[in-house]
């Protein structure tokens, strides 16, 4: 079954004080449309890469918000940059720019 990302999080406890919010802050400054996301999952539903492999762009959003950047690194390698997600987003989130910015942030943080 397709994983739309509603039950994506494994049981875990998160220490909010230790969150690495660098990426998300960087992202929000460059692509403020990220704030418009309502978490509907349309982007994931249509994702080209998601049809082949366990890749969930909505989960990426959550990882970002929570500052779990380690997982992000492997996730972001899977995107083909096709732009389908952006076309279906009901909120007008600039997803391609978001993705490229995340990739760059990961690169810089290392």
């Amino acid at each position, binding site marked *: 079954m397709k994983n739309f990302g509603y039950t994506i999080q494994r049981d875990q406890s998160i220490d909010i004080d230790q969150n690495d919010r660098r990426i998300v802050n960087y992202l929000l400054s460059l692509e403020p449309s990220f704030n418009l996301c309502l978490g509907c999952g349309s982007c994931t539903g249509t994702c080209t890469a998601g049809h082949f492999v366990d890749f969930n762009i909505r989960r990426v959003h959550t990882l970002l918000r929570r500052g779990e950047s380690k997982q992000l690194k*492997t996730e972001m390698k899977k995107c083909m940059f096709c732009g389908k997600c952006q076309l279906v987003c009901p909120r007008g989130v600039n997803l391609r720019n978001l993705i490229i910015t995340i990739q760059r942030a990961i690169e810089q943080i290392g």
Partner: protein
Amino acid sequence: MINFNLFVLPFFLGLIYVLVAVGKSWYHWIKALTPIDKVKLSTLIRHPKQALSALKEVFLESLVHRKMWKRNPLLGYMHMSFALGWFLLIVCGNIESRFYSGVHVNAPYYPIFLKFFIHDRLVIFFEVFSVPGFFRFLMDFLLLYILSGLVLALLKRQYSNFFGMKRTSRFQFTDRVAMTCLWLIFPLRLLAESFTAGHYGSGGGFLTQPLGDFLVQLLPVPSEFVAYAMWWGYSLSLGIFFVMLPYSRYMHIPTEVLLIFFRHAGIQPKKWYSSFSDTEVQSCSRCGVCIDICQMNTAGIHNAQTVYFIQGVRDRYVPEEITQKCLVCGRCQEICPVGINTDSLRLIKRRELGSGQSTDFSYLKSDDKPKTAQIVYFSGCMTHLTPSIIRAMTGILENAGISYLHLDKDRSICCGRPLMIAGKDRQANELIEINKQIIHETRATLLVTSCPICYRVFREEYNLPIRIQHHSQFILDLIKTGKIPLQGQFKKVVYHDPCDLGRGTKTYEAPREVLSKVTDLLPVKQEANNALCCGGSLGILNVTQQQRAMITKEALDILLENKPEILATACPLCKKTFATHASIPVMDIAELVYQSIPKPSYSASAQSHQAKSYANELI
């Protein structure tokens, strides 16, 4: 009489400077060519016929400014009067000077300041039929011609809209200095010649003599002194102009000549910033023609148009934001009078920005046994967002009785262009290799795609040894060979040219021909190579959805001017983008064709089948 005066020095030194500077640049550009390109260039020079055709283009473009004429006659006249007028002034001045000096080779400054050196030779005013009289007339005429262009240039700064331009380019300091000098050269020459003619009472032509006579009368100071000062001014403005030339927009004059030769030699832009790119960049005259046609204006972006981008490249610093802000729609490339490959320049600079995080597409490798077919249909990612196009295409294929393989029926692998257009070539090539392998394994001889983005990259980057068609071409072939019967409804339709299909691959006719078979195709004010971008372009990342919407709405306004019933396009991305804002249905040409295929037998049999099964159930 010694034909020398101190005032020739600024001109003379400036001339030497500019010749050395331009020669050095030419030398570097030619030296930096790839070995293959060097061979191409030397072949061109050794073939007089080809070299001559290059020279012809130099004449038509650099002197006559043919493309400017086509764009706006006033603009064409202005550019031509400067270029051709000055060129003729130099050539005729040289011939004229030989007549006076009696030798063939004169010092380079002699013809330029001829009227100063020969003022003691009496020539009867307006004696057109003698050789000196004729030249006197001709030279004055040419000067007047250039001055008329100068008046236009001054007007253009104020009233650019008369020249078909809303916005003009901004100038840098060196440009301003060089331009001021250029604009001073010809009035100063006029004054210098007039004062000299007036002072000696002879030697002027139909313009300079009466003007000189008149001005000398008005002067409170000795006219000889004023004339001398004017000659100094004339020489200085020439000298400063020459020294500033390599650092200003006027560098495009000598560079364009070389560029035309490069092009005639068959030298192509590369994927990296090559010597050819640098020649292109320096050939940009900053004419600003690419400003108004850029749709980013509509979205309120006024700093990233090609002229500003190229300016940044020339100054060796382009802010990343400017490099990225471009729809890569190709409109400026179509209109640029110098013919600069603006799109490929943008992509080169995007590539340089760093190719970004590495990708991992290993998940795409599959061990499924490949299916084979002669004809392979690749719908593309975007088409998966518009299933009606896929339905129409498979419907058409089945109606034509063609056996085919729908390569990406369930899921699509991206063609790679979205990555490539963002400057991520390395990552794009990974996808390209995977797709190539899959296509290769189908043993297809014809690859049909519904998406112009895929179509373009298949053609440009894939090197497939098979035929590649966009579905508009494929459908046209089917219609022409009578494979699909058509019963058009001939509704009023306008056609929107997708950027990648139209300007990208020059496919303008096939979709129109298909449409004219089934619809009543109305004209659009801006179409074919002047068509607007729908605003959905994958070429730009850093614009908001609101800005995109502005671009889309503007394009729709123009498309719907003639009140069509349906907006037709040939690209799933255009369709999806327009559909959000259009007041009328937006349909792909495949859908329109599929709609026009009569299907009586199909529906009848389907009905009877239903009826039978219902009857069976009853029994």
